[in-house]
């Protein structure tokens, strides 16, 4: 049982590329922390630095009150589940799980107890004599989990453990992992690029972008109050609609609010916060849209529309909508026709305002 603390952790590769640009956060004892971000953002590198598989250029990593910067992976009291599972292909399931314990000279009876217990929890008891290649993807994933839990480490590290599974199995395993972690109450750090996985698993969510932390918090807070336009467009699907507004537009939209006065900025509205209605809401926003495309997925419908008055100069961010396009998410299967002109309205409390560079949220 341990907490994990990162203090100004940096990683610079020989050649000068700065992969991790100073990261601070703390994962409390027993918490489930998810690092999420687009590929190349440094999340896997950071996890591997915690594991000891990558060196730290500067800063400290502290596991359970001990600075582990110079400590070998085997001695950090961590266990890791790899994306491709990294099972030893020539060893049986049993030996895959027992290997790390044997290397630590644990007595065989105790190894057996732990392996059998892990196998029981993971429903692998009948497969202990099989080799990894005789298992399905989901079963291999469970063996990789088993190898981690028999060690009873202070910290579990997961490096995109579900990305090699098909969609259905991925959801099932996601639930399994969360249940298992609750039951064992082991501090965990989990890397994924899937924002849905991140939202559903995390106690603390760390959103990363190009080697930096964009926002840390609990998932719902991050969803409701994204700190930057990057977070706003990365968390939530389909992404938040972002529209640059001129200073005068902001003044007229948010009349009377001193914090919104003066400068240009970016307005954000989540697709699900719109209502299609002829009535405007006092203090809210109303957009005149021409319907371009419609996606019906059953329980809900996505309406893709173009704003009639295009506003120039949109900052480009991953996941952001093309200029002028707005997505509206409405419940049910009833939808306007293509080419139809509609009015999408959203109340004041669902509007997000960011600084013009997208780096700062302006509280309203």
């Amino acid at each position, binding site marked *: 049982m341990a907490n994990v603390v990162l203090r100004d952790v940096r990683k610079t590769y020989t050649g000068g590329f700065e992969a991790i640009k100073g990261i601070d956060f703390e994962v409390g004892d027993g918490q489930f922390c998810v690092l999420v971000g687009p590929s190349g953002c440094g999340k896997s590198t950071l996890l591997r630095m915690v594991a000891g598989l990558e060196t730290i250029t500067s800063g400290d990593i502290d596991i359970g009150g001990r600075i582990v910067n110079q400590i070998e*992976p085997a001695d950090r009291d961590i266990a890791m589940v790899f994306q491709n599972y990294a099972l030893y292909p020539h060893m049986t399931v049993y030996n895959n799980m027992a290997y790390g314990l044997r290397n630590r000279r644990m007595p065989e009876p105790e190894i057996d107890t732990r392996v059998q217990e892990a196998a029981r929890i993971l429903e692998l008891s009948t497969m202990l004599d099989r080799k990894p290649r005789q298992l399905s993807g989901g079963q291999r994933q469970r063996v990789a989990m088993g190898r981690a839990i028999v060690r009873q480490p202070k910290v579990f590290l997961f490096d995109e453990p579900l990305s090699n599974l098909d969609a259905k199995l991925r959801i099932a395993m996601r639930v399994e992992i969360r249940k298992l972690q609750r039951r064992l109450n082991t501090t965990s750090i989990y890397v994924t690029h899937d924002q849905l996985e991140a939202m559903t698993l995390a106690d603390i969510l760390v959103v990363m972008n190009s080697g930096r932390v964009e926002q840390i918090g609990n998932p719902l807070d991050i969803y409701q109050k994204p700190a930057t336009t990057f977070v706003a467009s990365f968390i939530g699907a389909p992404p938040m609609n972002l529209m640059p507004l001129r200073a005068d537009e902001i003044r007229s939209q948010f009349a009377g609010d001193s914090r919104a006065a003066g400068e240009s900025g970016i307005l954000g509205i989540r697709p699900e916060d719109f209502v299609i209605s002829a009535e405007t809401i006092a203090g809210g926003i109303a957009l005149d849209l021409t319907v371009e495309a419609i996606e019906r997925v059953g329980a809900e419908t996505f309406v893709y529309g173009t704003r009639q008055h295009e506003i120039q100069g949109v900052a480009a961010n991953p996941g952001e909508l093309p200029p002028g396009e707005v997505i509206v998410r409405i419940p049910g299967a009833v939808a306007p026709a293509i080419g139809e002109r509609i009015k999408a309205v959203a109340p004041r409390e669902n509007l997000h305002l960011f600084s013009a560079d997208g780096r700062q949220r302006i509280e309203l």
Partner: protein
Amino acid sequence: MVEHRPWNDIIAYAILTLGVFIVAFPVYVAMIASTHDAATVVGGRMPLSPGGHALENYYRAIFVGGSRTAPEPVGQLLLNSFISAIGIAVGKICISILSAYAVVYFRFPFRKTAFWIIFVTLMLPVEVRIYPTYKVVADLRMLDTYAGLILPLIASATGTLLFRQFFMTVPDELLEASRIDGAGPFRFFKDTLLPLSITTISALFVIQFIYGWNQYLWPLLITTQDSMQTIVTGIKKMLVTTDELAEWQLAMATAVLAMLPPVAVVIFMQRLFVRGLVETEK
């Protein structure tokens, strides 16, 4: 082929059968000759069907030896061939898997230099440095020893390159998982890398066994005693006499014995053989 014409297949079968016939014919004749007595063979009118002297000829070749032409029984030479072929194959595998492990899994000063030192040996077959190498072996007092037959042939780049290539395909995560599981360089090698390399090792063994067994020039140079010859070099000595006195039926029996082990290896371990051949050369 895309067309389905019966004559197409018939032509193919005919050509291939002809090929197999050409390939097999010299060996068939040798086998036949090894079953006749000396007079029948030397007479120049040897039939193409087996004679009745097979047991006698093979017994003499293996245990007794010919009269003047091959004083040494082939049994001893077969043993020499086995020892040196297995020695060469095992030695090569041992030193090259270790050097490949060092080059792939460690970072250290002069790593690339070491790799190049090994790699360049591809360009120096024993044939271009015969006498100086002979002198080194003589100075080391290894003439007429198994060490002299084996050691100069076990260092070459092929094995190192083959293992290096295989190691590169082993996922990095296996090493990382091993490190987290508390395995150092020795344990990782013994518990993970070596078991995964079994097929590569076997393939290399098959190729190097054949290579070692079929060595000619080197054993010819460094063995002066007949009892240290290999079977491949021994055959030639059976023929170096005035022809009429050469005991051809014994020479052919010896040739058959000399072919048997490596050919058996190719036929019964064909998969490993093909794999080894393709991978050491590609």
